[in-house]
């Protein structure tokens, strides 16, 4: 292992890792903000809107992210719409993340006792308060572990953006290797950086899961109906 060679290229890799972090964070924020309100659609009753949404998420989940990226990057310019690579990457990654996030949020929201919604309706509470202040806080601990493990997938998925010339971790590592023909050190370093970033997300998921199990155990003990 050539440590000098690694030290020489590490700043480039870290800079690229920063791009990966940005892509991941932007994708997570956008897909979460968009998926949250959409996940409520069709939960209490099926409507044409909810059916259309189901179709759209099914489509998005079936499409490889790469195809979505190609479509926006190479397909749209044919109609005169030319976007630069970074926005295309964010849009593409967000679209496929939305589809998964909707399903993850729904599974959590569905796990909340429907009696809670019924009680809120009987009290005359506005719909948004029911969802935001009653159902959502109860669904949060249920979907958070799944959400965070999906976030790890999003993080790893950003590597496909290398294909549309985004200088993120995988693409920069690849570039260095293609110039120096010394793949081992660079790829190990890139892998370690991914593991570090994914590890942070996994630790967060683990912490939430522990916290939840503890809370469930203590509430089970205290119930004496």
């Amino acid at each position, binding site marked *: 292992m050539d440590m000098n060679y690694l030290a020489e290229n590490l700043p480039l890799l870290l800079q690229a890792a920063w791009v990966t972090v940005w892509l991941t964070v932007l994708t997570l924020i956008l897909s979460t903000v968009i998926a949250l309100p959409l996940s409520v659609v069709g939960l209490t009753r099926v409507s044409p809107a909810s059916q259309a949404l189901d179709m759209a998420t099914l489509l998005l989940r079936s499409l490889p992210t790469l195809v979505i990226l190609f479509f926006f990057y190479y397909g749209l310019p044919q109609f005169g719409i030319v976007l630069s690579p970074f926005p295309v990457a964010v849009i593409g990654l967000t679209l496929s993340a939305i589809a998964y996030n909707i399903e993850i949020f729904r599974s959590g929201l569905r796990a909340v*006792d429907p009696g809670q919604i*019924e*009680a809120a309706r009987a*009290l*005359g509470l506005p719909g948004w308060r029911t969802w935001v*202040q*009653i159902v959502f806080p*109860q669904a949060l601990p249920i979907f958070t572990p799944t959400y965070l493990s999906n976030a790890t997938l999003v993080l790893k998925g950003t590597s496909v953006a290398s294909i549309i010339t985004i200088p993120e971790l995988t693409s920069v590592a690849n570039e260095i290797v293609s110039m120096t023909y010394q793949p081992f050190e660079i790829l190990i370093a890139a892998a370690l950086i991914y593991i570090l970033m994914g590890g942070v997300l996994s630790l967060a998921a683990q912490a939430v899961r522990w916290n939840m199990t503890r809370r469930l155990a203590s509430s089970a003990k205290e119930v*004496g*109906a």
Partner: protein
Amino acid sequence: MNIAKQDRRWPDRPDPENIVELRGVRLDYGILNVLHDVNLTIREGETVAIIGPSGSGKTTLLRCINYLARPTAGEVWVDRHLVGQVEKGGKLHPATEGVLRLHRLETGMVFQQFNLFRNMTVLQNVMYAPVACRVTSKEEARDRAVRLIERVGLGGKLSARPHELSGGQQQRIAIARALAMQPKVMLFDEATSALDPELAREVLEVMRELAREGMTMVVVTHEMGFARNVADRVVFMENGRIVEDGAPAVIFSDQAPKRIRNFLSH
């Protein structure tokens, strides 16, 4: 038949003494006819017990009063307001959820499974809705909530979470939560069915107290003792119809129709 589409004159308002008035209420789920032409009048301060076999439509009838179940036809009046419908251009139209919300402020409901908000403390459960629905200020809601919680005997549990309470305690808090909205009528949907007899007794005691204080109450129940001793009137339902409506002394006597005596003897 959708009454909203019919051309008709504005219906007559009920007598001001009648807090609840159901006129020709019908409810179908597809081809299943759950309620069939139900007429019922409940006067201010009355406690009416609804009894009858399982599947007779008691709970559905109760849920029609606050439109948690939407009748297929008929009129529901609560405190002289037509529930679930609005007049536009001389015709009646189904109310939107937003309007229904306002209609529901007149009724308080207590559920079989209590349905306390699990992410809130006892105090938050009781004071949340009056503040969220802008019925009162936060300070007033808190004061009233504390008083109501003390009234149902749980003044020491203000900061407890629902899962830390027994079923009977949860149900008493659920009653306080409904009362906090100062409803014109309280609806009880088998409020004691999920409780063992001892815990049911403490809930029934709170309900008895409410009835004594003159709250208008509609109580779907299997507690025949409550129906006989506390209710002013007992309504017997079967197959989506009101079969009998009378004083407990009559319903629980040998003069009652045979089907009621059969039901009560089981």
